[in-house]
C-alpha cells in the first residue's frame, strides 16, 4: 500500500512546480529568462511597496510638481557615453534670515551650458513687497547686476531664460567685449557661463550669486531658490513636460505585465475550453465554433481594437476585456482542437464514458488536464504579444493618457520627435524594458516547450 502511494507521488511530481523549475534551470536560456523575470518581480515589489499608485498618477498628471526639473534631460548615467561632462541640476537656496545681503558660491565645472536658469521666491510680507537685487560674479572676477526685481506675489518665479531685457543686455556687453563678430547667438545661460571669446566655451570655476533684499517691514522675510537646470537628471531622464520618466517605467512594469499576463492567460484558458467543447461534442456545436473561428480570422483585430477604444473611451482594464473578447475564437482553437480529437480516442476516456461520467466531467477533468501541458509554453510565449499590443494602442493614442505605462513613454517620445531630435534615451529605455520582457517570456516558453514536448529535443 505504501509503495503504491510512493509511486503515485512520483508521477504527480513529474509536473510539480519544483520539478519544472529544476528542469528549466538546466537550460542556459531558462536561467536567463528566470533572472530577468526575477528582476521584474523585484521591480514590481519595489514599486508597489514604496511608490503608491495614487502618488504616481498625481505626479504623472500634475504640471506643477516638476517645475524644478529640467526639460528633456538624459539620465545621469547617460553622460558616461557622451564623453562630455554634461551639467547636472544645481539647486541653491537662500533665506533672508541668513543675513542680508547673502552670497552663495557654487562650482560649475561642466563641459556644456545649462539649459535654463530660474529663481523661485517665497515671500512673506505685509504692505509693500520686498525688492531684490541679484548680482552675478564670474570666476574671472566679472560682476554683473542680473536683475532688480520687485516680488509680485507670495510665490514668485523669475524665468531668466525668457527675460529679453537681460538677454539684450548680455548680448551688447559681451559682443562689445569680444570685439570680433561671432556666429552663435547668446542666450541667458550662455551669456552667464561663457568665456568671453569668439568661440563658444564654458568658463569653468566657482560662481557667486548675491541677493540683496530691501524689505518694507522688519517682520518680512524672503526665501529663494536658484535652479540651474542641467542636461542630466534622475535614473531615467525627464520628458518634454519635465516629468521624470522613471515614474512611468516603474508603474509601467506592473501595469504592462499584468495586462500581458491577464490577456494571454484568459485567452488561452477560454480557447482551451472552447476547443475542448468543439472537439468533444462534434456535430453542430463543432461546426458552429469552427465557423466562428473563421469569422474571427477575417475580423481585423487592430482596427477594431482602435475603433472600440476610440469610440467608447475605455481605460486599460476594460480594454483588456475587449482584447479577450476579440481573441477568444482565435486561430489557437484549431490546433488545440486537433489535440482534443487525438485525446478523445484514448482508452481512459472510453473508460470514463463506460462508468457514466458526464460530458462536462470528461471535458474538465480528463481532457483539459491532458492537453494543458503542451499549451503552457504557448501561454508564456504569448505574453509579450499583448505587452506590445499595449504599446501599439498607446502609440495610436487611444489609451487612457493618464496612466503611466511603457507604451505611453514611447508615444510621448514619438509625438515629440525624440527619434529625430536625438533624445535617444527617451526611446531606448522603455524599449529595453519591452525587449527584456519579450525575450524573457519567449525564452521561458521555448524552454518549457522543450520540457513538455521532448520530441523537440531531437530536432
Amino acid at each position, binding site marked *: 500500500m505504501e509503495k503504491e502511494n510512493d509511486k503515485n507521488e512520483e508521477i504527480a511530481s513529474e509536473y510539480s512546480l519544483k520539478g519544472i523549475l529544476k528542469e528549466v534551470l538546466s537550460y542556459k*536560456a531558462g536561467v536567463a529568462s528566470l533572472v530577468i523575470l526575477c528582476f521584474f518581480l523585484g521591480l514590481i515589489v519595489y514599486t508597489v511597496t514604496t511608490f503608491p499608485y495614487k502618488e504616481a498618477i498625481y505626479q504623472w498628471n500634475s504640471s506643477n510638481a516638476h517645475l524644478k526639473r529640467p526639460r528633456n534631460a538624459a539620465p545621469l548615467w547617460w553622460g558616461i557615453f557622451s564623453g562630455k561632462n554634461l551639467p547636472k541640476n544645481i539647486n541653491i537656496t537662500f533665506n533672508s534670515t541668513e543675513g542680508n545681503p547673502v552670497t552663495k558660491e557654487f562650482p560649475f565645472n561642466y563641459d556644456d551650458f545649462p539649459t535654463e536658469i530660474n529663481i523661485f521666491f517665497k515671500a512673506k510680507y505685509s504692505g509693500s513687497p520686498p525688492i531684490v537685487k541679484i548680482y552675478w560674479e564670474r570666476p574671472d572676477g566679472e560682476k554683473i547686476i542680473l536683475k532688480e526685481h520687485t516680488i509680485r506675489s507670495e510665490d514668485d518665479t523669475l524665468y531668466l531664460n525668457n527675460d529679453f531685457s537681460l538677454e539684450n543686455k548680455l548680448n551688447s556687453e559681451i559682443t562689445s567685449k569680444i570685439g570680433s563678430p561671432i556666429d552663435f547667438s547668446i542666450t541667458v545661460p550662455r551669456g552667464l557661463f561663457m568665456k568671453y571669446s569668439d568661440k563658444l566655451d564654458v568658463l569653468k570655476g566657482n560662481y557667486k550669486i548675491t541677493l540683496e533684499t530691501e524689505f518694507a517691514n522688519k517682520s518680512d522675510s524672503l526665501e529663494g531658490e536658484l535652479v540651474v537646470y542641467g542636461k542630466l537628471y534622475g535614473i531615467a531622464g525627464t520628458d518634454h513636460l519635465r516629468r521624470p520618466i522613471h515614474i512611468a517605467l516603474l508603474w509601467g512594469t506592473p501595469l504592462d505585465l499584468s495586462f500581458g499576463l491577464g490577456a494571454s492567460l484568459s485567452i488561452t484558458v477560454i480557447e482551451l475550453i472552447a476547443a475542448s467543447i468543439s472537439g468533444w461534442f462534434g456535430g453542430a456545436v463543432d461546426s458552429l465554433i469552427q*465557423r466562428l473561428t*473563421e*469569422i474571427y*480570422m*477575417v*475580423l*481585423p*483585430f*487592430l*482596427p*477594431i481594437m*482602435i*475603433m*472600440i477604444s*476610440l*469610440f*467608447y473611451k475605455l481605460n486599460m482594464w476594460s480594454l483588456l476585456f475587449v482584447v479577450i473578447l476579440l481573441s477568444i475564437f482565435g*486561430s489557437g482553437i484549431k490546433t488545440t482542437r486537433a489535440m482534443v480529437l487525438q485525446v478523445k480516442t484514448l482508452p481512459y476516456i472510453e473508460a470514463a464514458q463506460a462508468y457514466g461520467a458526464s460530458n462536462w466531467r470528461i471535458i474538465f477533468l480528463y481532457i483539459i488536464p491532458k492537453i494543458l501541458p503542451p499549451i503552457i509554453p504557448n501561454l508564456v*510565449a504569448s505574453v*509579450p*504579444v499583448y505587452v*506590445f499590443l499595449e*504599446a*501599439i494602442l498607446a*502609440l*495610436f*493614442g*487611444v489609451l487612457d493618457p493618464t496612466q503611466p505605462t511603457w507604451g505611453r513613454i514611447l508615444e510621448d517620445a514619438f509625438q515629440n520627435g525624440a*527619434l*529625430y531630435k*536625438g533624445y*535617444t534615451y527617451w*526611446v531606448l529605455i522603455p*524599449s529595453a524594458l*519591452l*525587449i527584456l520582457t*519579450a*525575450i524573457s*517570456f*519567449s*525564452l521561458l516558453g*521555448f524552454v518549457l516547450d522543450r520540457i513538455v514536448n521532448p520530441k523537440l529535443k531531437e*530536432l
Partner: protein
Amino acid sequence: MTLFLTVLIAVYLTIVIANAGGYVDKIAETEIRTNIAMVMRENPSFRNLSSEDQKKFLESRAQHELRRRGLDQPFPIRSLYHLKNAIVLNLGRAMYMTSDSGSTLVKSIILERLPVTVLLFTTATVINFFLHLFLGLRLSRKYGSFWDKLVISLSPSSVIPGWFYGIFLIMIFYSWLHILPSGGLVDYPPPSGTIPYFLSVLKHMILPLLSWIIASLFLGIYQNRTFFLIYSTEDYVEVAKAKGLSPRQIEYRYILRPSLPPIITSFALSVISSWTGAIVTEFIFNWPGLGQTMSQAISYFDAPVIVGVTVIYAYLLTITILILDIVYAILDPRMRIQG
C-alpha cells in the same frame, strides 16, 4: 461561397460594434444632409427663401430621405442597410479628411492609399516566404552545425514585432548614419520621370522591409528547417536515396514538395496576423498607406474613415485567405480533389 458568408458576418459585426456608439447612423445621416444641402444650393428657386425656411425645408427633406432609406427603422433592420452599403463599398463621406485628389468620399480616400499598402505588404510577404524557404532548406542540410545552432538560439528574437525593430532601424540609419530616409513614400519634392521616382520609392522601402525581414527571419527559418527535417526522415526519401538520385533531386521532389502544405499553413497564419503589424509599421515609417490613414483619422476623430478602413481590412484579410487557399490547392493535389 462560405468565404463570402464569412466576410458578410465579419463586416456586419464591425458595423454593429461601431454603431453601438451611433457612429454608423451618423455617417449615413450626414451624407443625406450634405446631399440635400448641395441640391438646394444648386437650385436657384431656393435662393429667395429665408434662411429659416431653408433650414426647415432641409430638415423635412432629410427626415423624408431617412424614412425612404429605412433609417428610421429599429436597429436590426437599419443595420442591414448599413451592411449593404459596406459590402458595395459605399462608405459615406469623411468628416474632415480628403483624398489627395480632393474628394471627401471615404471610398476614394481608401482606394488612393490601398495600392501603397499592398505594395509594401506583398513585397515583404513574398521576400519573407522565399527567404525562409531557401535558408530553411539550406540549414536542414547542415543540421547541427554552428549556423543551425545560431538560428535556433536567435529564434526567440521574433517575439519582438517588426515595427519595434523599425524604431531602431530609424535610429541607426537615419538619426545616426544619415544614409536612409526615416519614412514616407518618395523624396520631397517627388523626382520627375518614372525611373528616378521608382528608385526613390525603393529607397524608402528599404527600412520598412528590413524591419519586417529581421522580425520574422530566425523563427521562420527555424520552423521551415524543422518541417524539412521531419519530412527528410520519411521512408520514401530513403528509397530515393537508395535509387541513387542526386541530393538536389531528392530535396526538390521528395522533401520540398510534401512539406510545402504545412509550411504554407503556418505561413498563412503569420501573414494574417502580420496585417496588424502592417498598420503599425506604416505609422512608424510614415508610409502613406491604410495604416497611416487610420492614424490620421484617429487624430481627426474622423469616424467614417475609421469604420471604412476597418471594413477594408476585413476585405484584405479575406483576400489574403482566399489567395492562400488557392496556393494551397495548387500545391496539394489532395485538396483539389476534395474541392
